[in-house]
């Protein structure tokens, strides 16, 4: 037996809820009898409105309380609105879930903030994010660490490209006054052995500063060789370049100090970053400066 009328079904549902203390089989029979009465009333007078019919029966809570009283049970106190009950449940559930989530995060990523004094790193969320603790890259007077100078003779007739890789470093690239590659670095006192690694493959000279964590290096590069630089987390300064330079960098800042006496053609692109304006030259012999930077800024001066 179905009524297919939402108002009637809503009324019967409310009545069923209000009959709560009564056992299920008896509740079902009560609902069935009331539904039967409604159908008889509608059959007798099809034009009667559903709301008036339900009103003549009485509010579900009132009818339910009469059933309860007849059975010697305590009449129920109907809630003002079931929405209030569900709002409270939802709020408490959200609070519980938030506390649980916070507990999981704290447990998994403990300590939340930690400072690595040796590496001057601030580790956040158990090391998920590492931030350099000493961000004063402009402090040239920093004398921490040991000064190391390296000189590498470059056969400019054979070597066409110098490929440099640096990690968490400050690197200044300047023109060399001779045909040699000069590397001046300040690094951690104990990082001397790993300050750089070099190899030659074909016409490319590879220089890796990746192992020299937190080094500050100045690289003097002979003219007439192209430079390919790859930096992750750091700062790169190109001082008066006299080479074709290609840079790929993630997370950091690149500063270009063009040589006023030379012409450059700039191809600069950033993702999540900013680029100052650089005037490209259309001169045939213009030096190409190609830079691709993710998360950072390319600036002049």
């Amino acid at each position: 037996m179905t009524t297919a009328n939402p108002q009637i079904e809503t009324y019967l549902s409310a009545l069923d809820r209000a009959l709560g203390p009564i056992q299920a089989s008896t509740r079902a029979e009560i609902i069935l009898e009331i539904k039967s009465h409604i159908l008889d009333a509608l059959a007798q007078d099809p034009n009667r409105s559903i709301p008036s019919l339900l009103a003549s029966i009485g509010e579900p809570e009132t009818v339910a309380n009469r059933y309860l009283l007849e059975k010697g049970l305590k009449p129920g106190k109907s809630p003002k609105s079931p929405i209030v009950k569900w709002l409270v449940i939802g709020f408490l559930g959200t609070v519980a879930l938030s506390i649980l989530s916070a507990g999981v995060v704290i447990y998994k990523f403990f300590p939340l903030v930690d400072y690595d004094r040796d590496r001057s790193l601030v580790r956040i969320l158990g090391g998920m994010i590492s931030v350099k603790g000493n961000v004063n890259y402009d402090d040239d007077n920093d004398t921490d660490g040991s000064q190391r100078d390296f000189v590498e003779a470059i056969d400019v007739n054979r070597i066409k490209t110098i490929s440099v890789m640096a990690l968490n470093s400050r690197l200044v690239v300047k023109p060399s006054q001779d045909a040699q590659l000069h590397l001046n670095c300040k690094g951690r006192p104990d990082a001397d052995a790993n300050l750089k690694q070099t190899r030659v493959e074909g016409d490319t000279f590879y220089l890796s500063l990746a192992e020299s964590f937190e080094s500050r290096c100045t690289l003097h590069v002979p003219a007439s060789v192209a430079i390919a630089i790859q930096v992750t987390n750091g700062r790169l300064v190109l001082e008066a370049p006299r080479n074709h330079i290609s840079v790929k960098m993630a997370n950091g800042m690149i500063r270009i100090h063009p040589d006023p006496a030379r012409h450059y053609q700039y191809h600069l692109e950033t993702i999540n970053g900013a680029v100052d304006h650089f005037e490209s030259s259309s001169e045939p012999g213009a030096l190409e400066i190609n830079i691709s930077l993710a998360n950072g800024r390319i600036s002049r001066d």
Partner: protein
Amino acid sequence: MEMNIDNWKTQVRKGYLELCLLLIIRRYGRIYGFDLLEKLRQADLPVKEGTLYPLLNRMTEDGTLGAVWETANVKGHPRKFYSLTEDGFKLLETMRHEFNAMIELYQNLENPVEVSRDDSKPAD
């Protein structure tokens, strides 16, 4: 004054409603709730649905009435038919006896019988 009368009438009707229900059910043998409401209305004893059905439910549970759901040979939906049980018949008789006693009491109060010297002599 009118409201007091209505309240009094409601209270009095509450008192003999069960008696009236049992009388109607006995008269028809077996009857379902909606029809019972109609019969009560016709007897100038209107009862709200929300009052009648809980009362019938209680009277069924305490054994005064028997109830059977009938679905066969009934057009449309099932109906719950009520009838008097053996205990129901006995209860009805007791209630009728008590009610008649109350009527007699009322009549005696309304029309007191005065005992006079003439009245005490047998009629010729």
